[in-house]
């Protein structure tokens, strides 16, 4: 072992070593899916459709990144869909009164507040994350209906036009909605991999007791992952409001399951301690491209469900190949 090789990030090294197959199953699945669709319909690779896919993936990608924090930290969050709806509606309502900046800030803060509540209950009261976030999922949805009266939030004459324009606008040819997850991915990957805080999340998820005995403030770390998740669900909710040109109280149903599926497809373990942001985003692409492909191919909506279910299982089974050698049983 030379002195030099020590300077490499061991993670990167491992990735390189095993690039060929293991660890890259999610990417391979995605490429396979794209290739198959491209063969079946030439419209798939049209610039217009690729833009569609990016935009359609953008919101779920932001949610899945938040979910990655929680899952790596050993947790679980079912409340992201309701939280996104709350944030979108709060953003819309505040925006109509106090301007775009205030609205956006309020929406994101509302999301982070839900995350904080989840985090405190789970980490400090030790309540099971599944049941806690199931509770908040239902509760927050109720709050959304209460504050909106169940009606979409768009005021008399719609949300502010700059905000609506943001939902479909572009910068350097790429939608703003796509820039957001791109920038977040870069920044958050840095947080998870290059900061002590990030390493503590992995350690806590990988072995809470051992992390605790190594001086990690495990409760605070766990609570913080839910704040990230809630805050990012808030960002997603605001993006959704921009895209739907309104705050939608019913938005975000089933987002939690899609997001968790994406993160798991990206190779994270629900046991905690494993998972990578960019792979979670690949997991999102798998889910979105699949839906897009089935729509392009005009597959009957009943068969679509069958196909989606089958592909989820198949992709997860493929991902298992990777870890197969690692686990003895």
């Amino acid at each position, binding site marked *: *072992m030379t*002195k030099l090789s*020590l*300077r490499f*990030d*061991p*993670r990167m*090294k*491992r990735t390189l070593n095993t690039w060929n197959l293991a660890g890259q199953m999610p990417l391979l699945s995605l490429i396979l899916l794209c290739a198959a669709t491209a063969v079946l319909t030439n419209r798939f690779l049209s610039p217009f459709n690729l833009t569609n896919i990016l935009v359609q993936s953008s919101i779920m990608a932001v949610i899945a990144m938040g979910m990655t924090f929680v899952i790596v930290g050993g947790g679980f969050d079912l409340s992201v869909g309701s939280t996104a709806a709350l944030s979108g509606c709060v953003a819309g309502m505040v925006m109509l009164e106090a301007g775009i900046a205030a609205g956006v800030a309020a929406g994101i803060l509302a999301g982070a507040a839900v995350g904080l509540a989840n985090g405190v209950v789970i980490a400090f009261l030790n309540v099971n994350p599944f049941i806690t976030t199931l509770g908040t999922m239902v509760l927050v949805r109720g709050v959304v209906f209460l504050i909106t009266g169940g009606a979409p939030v768009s005021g008399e004459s719609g949300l502010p036009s700059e905000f609506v324009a943001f939902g479909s606008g572009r910068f350097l040819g790429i939608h703003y909605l796509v820039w957001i997850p791109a920038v977040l991915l870069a920044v958050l990957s*840095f947080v998870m991999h*290059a*900061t*002590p*805080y*990030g*390493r*503590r999340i*992995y*350690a806590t998820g*990988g*072995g809470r*007791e*051992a*992390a*605790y*005995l*190594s*001086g*990690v*403030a495990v409760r605070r770390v766990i609570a913080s992952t839910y704040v990230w998740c809630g805050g990012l669900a808030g960002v997603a909710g605001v993006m959704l409001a921009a895209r739907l040109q309104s705050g939608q109280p019913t938005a975000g149903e089933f987002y939690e399951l899609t997001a968790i599926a994406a993160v798991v497809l990206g190779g994270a373990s629900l046991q905690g*301690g*494993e998972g990578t942001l960019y792979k979670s985003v690949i997991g999102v692409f798998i889910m979105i491209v699949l839906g897009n492909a089935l729509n392009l191919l005009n597959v009957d909506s009943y068969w679509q469900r069958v196909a989606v279910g089958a592909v989820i299982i198949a992709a997860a089974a493929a991902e298992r190949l990777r870890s197969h*050698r690692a686990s*003895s049983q």
Partner: protein
Amino acid sequence: MARPAVNAEGVSKRFGATVALDGVDFAVACGEIHAVVGENGAGKTTLIRILGGVHRPDRGVVRVDGVERHFVSPRDAIAAGIVTIPQELRLVPALSIAENIALGDLPVRRFGPLALIDRTRMYEQAREVLAELDFAPDPRAAVASLGFAERQLVAIAKALRRRCRVFILDEPTAALEQREITRLFSVLARMQRQGTAIIYISHRLDEVAAIGDRCTVLRDGRVAALATRGAFTADDLAAAMTGGAAKQAVTASLAGGDPLLDTRPDGTTHFRLRAHEVVGLAGLLGSGTDRMMRGLFGAGNEAARVEVAGEQRRLASPRDAIAAGIGMVPGERSLGLIMNQSVRDNILLPNLDTLSRMGYLDRDAGDRIVAEVMELVDIRPRQPSLKVGALSGGNQQKVILAKWLARRVAVLLLDDPTQGIDVAAKAQIHALIGDVVARGGGALIYSSDLGELARLCDRVLAVRQGRVMASLDRRAGIDESKLRNAIGG
């Protein structure tokens, strides 16, 4: 030698790039105790896992009574009369002691096609086998409520209960006290007389020399030596294992520096640890030494109030303790390590704050520290990116020490740090403790091996029911028997 009850012929096993076993021949006869020794990672566990149906060999065959067998699961091996006490404790914490003991072969009452658990018999059987080990817990209590060493006894009882022809014990005594060890040996002797073939793995070489009829020494996955009783001593074994002469453990320095750690003088648990001093804790199973240790580390139920280097401190969490310059090596490895993370990540975990440069992690500095400390502690292989779970037990233990050495803590709390560790590694760990003490640190150490305490410590505190009952000083002479009397063993 009689016909072997079970034997392995030319078995090899690789895990990825690691060759765990390379063409090993091994046999054990009925009524024989065949000991297996070797350094950490020599392949002992792998060998008996192949015999026990957990692993399948890459090459070579396993024969039972001369007949070639291909076990697919432990169930097959158990059905063939081969019962193993695994090295890593494998019990179901949520189930009762009796259920754990009976698991896999629950006593039933039959009503036609219906088989119901016969609880009365289950408890009786549990009580019986536990009694053979002089251990009398309520068999209905959950295993989760037991201490680590007590669980070891349950694991032994569980194996004893199975009527077996081949009995494999993988380091059964690692966490046990002399008293339980003696009991175990008498049970083994009886089984031997009844014709059971016994395979016995241990790092306590004097034990091996005492009870082994034959002894196989493994080195780097090969058989380095095979000797019969009388033809080997503990020193011979050590030499064969390492391929050279082993150093005996260090003796501690002269004590007496400034006080490093002083518990509040609340009567019975009061004691003081000085710089340059190694203090031992001795106690029987359930005497509460582990709780004392956790408490001092801020991980007990209540915050600890102690004086560290002359300063009053309230240790409400391990974080406080670490900030005060204390490090702990817990008694269970899974509490000291995050198994699915790399050696590097594990070593850096308690050091992240010192590597923080304006919020981000100084990777280069981290790599330097890891490389340095891996060299110092001699972790093999020197591969910082390897998952800790793939290391042998001895190396895992060294990684835990490395975490604290990298931080240069002043006080080390060590809960049975050499449990399950080979002689060479043990000597290395003793030397490392010596280094810490030499540069002005102090160490508080619990060990299930009283001899180790006697050799290592400047002072030994005898603990009963969570209280310090006596203090033995090196200057007055410490030996095993004195210690045993002090702890009530």
